[in-house]
């Protein structure tokens, strides 16, 4: 178990240092989320006061849209020079590949969120008055569930030639319960309702995160075995 973790950190470190050097994926993700915000500001007039109601949903829309871009690259990038085979023939447990990738993707998406969510608030002229701690907690647990399932399905989709098209189709239906919970909880925090109402949703998200983390962890080796 300790080995799995340290190998996972090695793999995540490789991915992240690679990313920080080229800034290709992360740059695209940030620009893309900004564009999504822009397009939505055309759709919903930001000067209108009722628009505040769509902000919680927008947070998750930009997270999923830009996150899917990053997830698409996650395993496809390993196919160049057949690096994935190199990893699989290395003396590591295959689940450490999954954990490493999850870690790297989670870091990437959270970085993108720390840029895109303030931009969203800024452009939609929203003044944040809720509890920041709860907000961060909700965003992180929602994002984590998204990445857990997303990384897994990105590995699955990487087997197909049209993986970029396949991934969203596989991912979005599985994310639906998480997104319902995430959007509801975010709404509660942002409109400053009772935090205790959000706790139920947060519990649902945590249960989802843990259940799918466990399932993906166990099933990952079956995806890697193939070919």
């Amino acid at each position, binding site marked *: 178990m300790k080995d799995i973790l340290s*190998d996972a950190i*090695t793999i995540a470190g*490789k991915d992240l240092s690679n990313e920080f050097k080229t800034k290709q994926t992360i740059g695209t993700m940030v620009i893309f989320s900004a564009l999504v915000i822009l397009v939505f500001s055309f759709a919903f007039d930001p000067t209108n006061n009722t628009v505040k109601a769509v902000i919680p949903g927008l947070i998750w829309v930009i997270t999923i849209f830009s996150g899917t871009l990053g997830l698409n690259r996650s395993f496809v990038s390993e196919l160049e020079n057949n690096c994935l085979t190199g990893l699989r*023939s*290395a*003396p590591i*447990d295959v689940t450490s590949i999954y954990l490493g990738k999850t870690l790297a993707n989670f870091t990437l998406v959270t970085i993108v969120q720390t840029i895109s969510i303030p931009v969203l608030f800024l452009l939609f002229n929203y003044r944040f008055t809720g509890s920041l701690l709860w907000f961060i907690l909700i965003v992180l647990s929602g994002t984590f569930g998204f990445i857990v399932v997303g990384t897994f399905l990105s590995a699955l989709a990487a087997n197909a030639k049209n993986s970029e098209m396949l991934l969203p189709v596989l991912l979005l239906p599985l994310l639906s319960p998480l997104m319902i919970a995430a959007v509801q909880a975010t709404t509660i925090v942002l409109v400053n309702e009772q935090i205790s109402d959000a706790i139920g949703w947060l519990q649902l998200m945590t249960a989802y995160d843990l259940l799918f983390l466990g399932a993906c962890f166990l099933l990952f080796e079956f995806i890697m075995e193939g070919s």
Partner: protein
Amino acid sequence: MKELEIMLEIKNLTKILSDKLILRGVSLKLNKGEILAVVGPNGAGKSTFFKCTVGLLQPSGGEIIVDGEIIKKKSAATRKKIGFLGHESFLYSTLTPLENLRFYGKLYKVKSIDSKANQLLKEVGLHLFKDVPIRSFSRGMLQRLSIARVMLADPEILMLDEPHTGLDQDAVSLLNMIIKEKKNIGTSVLLISHDFEQVQALADSVAVLKKGKIIDTAPLNADLNLEKMKDWYSRAVSEG
């Protein structure tokens, strides 16, 4: 050779892929410090055989014994003893040679990675380029670097899948030199090749794989020259 210690033994290996019997009972023995070449026509199952041995594919039947231990699905320790050089380089094109080696070194739990990586890069003649992303490397340079990657963990068994393809003369002689050096310190080498010249130059014995079976083996010594070996091979293939 001092004593014949068996490093790798494959017993009756079978593999079914898409309802086709790719390997039908391959048995092989590889002694410590021996170089064994596996030759055979296209589609004979050479690559599948390698993938099963390395553990990338789960064999449908049979046993693979590395250094006295039966390989199972998750035996990271035995996988560490095998150095696998495939068709592709397994290297990350955005990383530099040093970073690539460092990454794989960490996964293979190599001690004092940096000094070892530097030394290996010197050996394969890439020391000058150690900080250049390998995106711009030629096929020969990549192959040299992948040799360095394989050597990094000091494997006891080297598995080389057509290592000579696409290499120029210098790189070939460098590769042969490294392989022979490794052999002298007791590393066993399993080699797949189409290149009879290199097989003749390197291998101690040669096995012919056809239609998923080893149909003939022969020791290579001084009196079996290139012509004779080619004759023997075509005879074995047409008979088998």
